[in-house]
């Protein structure tokens, strides 16, 4: 089907997130306002105004009432999804990068960037049921890795936190004691910064994308490398189909390195791979800048991509897609 082109952001997209029901799509961009859309027809529902910097990521609670966003204005904010009002602001001393709600939505993990001599850190915050009880205190702060942490998510049963970032190492932390449990080893792991990390729906495995032009699939519990998907471009965004054994990689040449000669040169395609055979199935073209964000609808029947070009493209699959045989 023809993709739906959603023009609502003025600057490059940074993150996309569907709610659990798959009817809402939240988008973050380097402009300061996260936006919520109808995931079906791409209609814009509303925006969340209040940040004063690029918004790097967001997460929505299971019941679709709370939204958390992390921004370069050195804060993370809690929002009421329905009204768009700010409920709480977590202030930091450096830009907030990645945010993720834990199972049960009572905890959230927020990463902050290295900034003005501060090292990067992973903060665990308690999320109160009643916003009036909310405090900014951290349950735990994890420190250690050099360089920016691009993504940190909860592991199984909120017992661990998985992080990946500029130093190309994937780490699994104990979320209670803050101890480092596992690290991906040099042989198997990525060779260049990890740009993105998504969990499967059941949280049993996760996919990482890296500037080393590959994406890797890992077991959440043991950090065993299961698959590697090799592409021709640096990978900025990854996602997995919840329905079929497909993974999608998005990326492209760095915006500053894009040649002006030909639009094909950059390869700004969302590439589909067979999750098991690691073979390329096809690509979806359309963006005219690198793809920075990818998300699958939880029903597996549509996906959206957000690019450096400032557009979100919403693709509903044709019936043929569900019958692809390799």
């Amino acid at each position: 089907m023809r993709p739906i082109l959603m023009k609502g952001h003025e600057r490059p997209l940074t993150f996309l997130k569907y709610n659990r029901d798959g009817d809402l799509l939240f988008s973050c961009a380097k402009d300061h306002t996260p936006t919520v859309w109808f995931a079906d027809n791409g209609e814009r529902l509303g925006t969340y105004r209040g940040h004063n910097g690029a918004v790097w990521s967001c997460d929505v609670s299971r019941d679709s009432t709370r939204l958390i966003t992390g921004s370069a204005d050195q804060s993370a904010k809690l929002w009421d999804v329905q009204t768009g009002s700010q409920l709480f602001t977590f202030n930091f001393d450096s830009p907030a990068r990645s945010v993720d709600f834990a199972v049960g939505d009572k905890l959230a993990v927020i990463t902050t960037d290295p900034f003005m001599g501060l090292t990067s850190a992973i903060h665990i915050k308690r999320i109160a049921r009643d916003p009036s009880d909310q405090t900014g205190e951290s349950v735990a702060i994890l420190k250690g890795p050099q360089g920016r942490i691009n993504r940190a998510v909860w592991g199984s049963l909120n017992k661990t936190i998985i992080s990946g970032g500029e130093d190309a190492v994937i780490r699994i932390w104990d979320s209670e004691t803050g101890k480092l449990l596992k690290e991906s080893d040099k042989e198997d792991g990525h060779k260049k910064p990890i740009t993105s990390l998504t969990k499967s729906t059941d949280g049993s495995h996760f996919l990482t994308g890296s500037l080393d032009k590959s994406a890797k699939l890992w077991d959440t519990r043991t950090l065993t490398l299961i698959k590697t998907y090799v592409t021709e471009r640096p990978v900025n965004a990854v996602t997995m189909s919840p329905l079929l054994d497909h993974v999608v990689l998005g990326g492209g040449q760095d915006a500053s390195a894009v040649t002006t000669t030909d639009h094909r040169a950059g390869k700004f395609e969302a590439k589909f791979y067979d999750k098991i055979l690691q073979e390329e199935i096809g690509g979806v073209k359309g963006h005219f800048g690198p793809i920075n964000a990818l998300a699958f609808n939880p029903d597996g029947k549509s996906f959206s991509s957000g690019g450096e070009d400032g557009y979100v493209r919403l693709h509903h699959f044709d019936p043929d897609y569900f019958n692809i045989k390799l």
Partner: protein
Amino acid sequence: MAEVVSMDEIRATAARLDIDLSSVDLDSIRLPPGEDFGVISDDEDLKGEDPLEFEAGFGNIIVVDNLPVVPKEKFDKLEGVIRKIYSQIGVIKEDGLWMPVDPETQKTQGYCFIEYNTPQEAELAKEKTNGYKLDRSHIFAVNMFDDIEKFMKVPDEWAPPETKPYAPGENLQKWLTDEKARDQFVIRAGSDTEVLWNDARQSKPELVYKRSFWTESFVQWSPLGTYLATVHRQGAAVWGGATTFNRLMRYAHPQVKLIDFSPGEKFLVTYSSHEPSNPRDTHRVVINIFDVRTGKVMRDFKGSADEFAIGGTGGVSGVSWPVFRWSGGRDDKYFARIGKNVISVYETETFTLIDKKSIKVENVMDFSWSPTDPILALFAPELGGGNQPARVSLVQIPSKEELRQKNLFSVSDCKMYWQSNGDYLAVKVDRYTKTKKSTYTGFELFRIKERDIPIEVLELENKNDKIISFAWEPKGHRFAVIHGDSPRPDVSFYSMRSGTNTGRVSKLSTIRGKQANALYWSPGGRFIILAGLKGFNGQLEFYNVDELETMATAEHFMATDVEWDPTGRYVVTSVTSVHEMENGFNVWSFNGKLLYRIMKDHFFQFLWRPRPPSFLSPEKEEEIAKNLKKYSKKYEAEDQDVSLQLSEQDREKRKMLKDEWERWVNEWKRLHEEQKLERQMLRDGEASDEEEEYEAKEVEVEELLDVSEEVISFD
């Protein structure tokens, strides 16, 4: 051959010593000077051979002998004369001229020492003034100070050289006996150089040899594929062997820039150019000709860059390479270079000029050898404002007899194209139009093997068409021309034989409006690739000239190079590091089917290993071509086996992958189930765990849009 320690061995040693290699920063290790821990450096022995620039510190001193013996009174005068001669060549150091005086007779001893600032100047002075006639009885004998020392050390008695026992060498042509008849190629990407088999059946290459930092600038196969040459700061080296690549020989030539093999790979020409000590001077050029097998210098040429840059092709940019062009055929008998108004032809028996003199050709611009015979084609442009016509002539070597000559008028430029068997020579002639404002192009076609060498003139239908590219069919009688205007030029094919009249050129076909700017014939002829490189983004058209039909069109985006394998079965298109992206190469079958593609960052070079020409006689080849079916049966069966095996392997692999995945999924399901309760607890008892399952419910919604009542008459 120095011992080469492989990375594997290093790892093994590290494991034995219980050292984590990854924790060792190798770059931070500094060895004490002069300590090598018993490890012989790869280059150590080469360094020793090197004529070091300041050997014993006297490299910049020359000794001038055979000076007149003069008494004290005339000492100053003689010194003045010498100083005048030698300061023209370079700057003599302060107190750098010393003429010893015999203390008894108070006369000079007939020689003097001159010290220059640099060894280069000293070398130049020696070359220029050795044999200089001061007067009839005083002919200078100039030597390097170091040489005298060296020659003094030569023992007086001649000792017979030790004959080393014969050690059988490796079979350097082993690669030709590959069972699957595959071809090899070398690629250079990043710091790695790899030699690989092209295994088209398996659709992937197979590694033969890989080495990091194998060469410092580039690699090059010898023309028959026996050697792979690498270029280093200290010189060039050749590698080869039966199963792997060992260093066979080294050729010391400091700062070598370019190398060139003779067609029979008997000789290697190396070239370097050196910054002059005086910035106003031109670069100094050193060319050595080595015997490939013994490594001996057969002849060296030294001079200023100007001397080697004469001729039309050199232009202002410098020396045109190769300076020495070798006569065709594998005899490596003659080589020639162009000079001002001369062509110097040398023969390799003695490495001297034939008849001790060069061929004088007024104003010669360009020359080329026939690829098979000792025949030179020369081009000299018009002289005296058109009073003397431009001419192209064919000269037989060594007799220097002119076989054929053609005068041409109002010529702006000429280019010569030999057919690979030396049967035909095409001369592309650009002529001025009457107004002299523009040029148009025609061809002069020489039939070398026919009696009296008939010449035919070919002009394109549209005389004003620009010629973009020209190429002879290898071993054949056809040629292809790209002509016309750049965005969509035409491609025409001509044959030197026409059906009834074998002596006339005839046009076969023109295909119009092709995005092509380069022609690549298959080495076996018949097939050609019309390639649109650079501006055309890598358009490829695989064309069959026998049938005059396109077999396939394809694109290798941004492709910069096209190279056929020596058998004409496969062709490679590559994107080299002139582009930042897309680096790598594609391997195609001759008919345009993409077999496999390899991406490599910083991709510099792709070169097929050449094969020596076949030993089969033309008759035998024809016979094989006739009975191809019979011969090909065996190979087809093999192909089928391989493809069956492949699909079998593929199936197995897929099954394995699927099974493995299944195991993971089952494990995950089990764990997921186990943790179900805990998860519910985390969610405050919310039971629904079915986040991954979705049911599409069909909901019918009836909406009442409008109600209207109407009375319909009933009849």
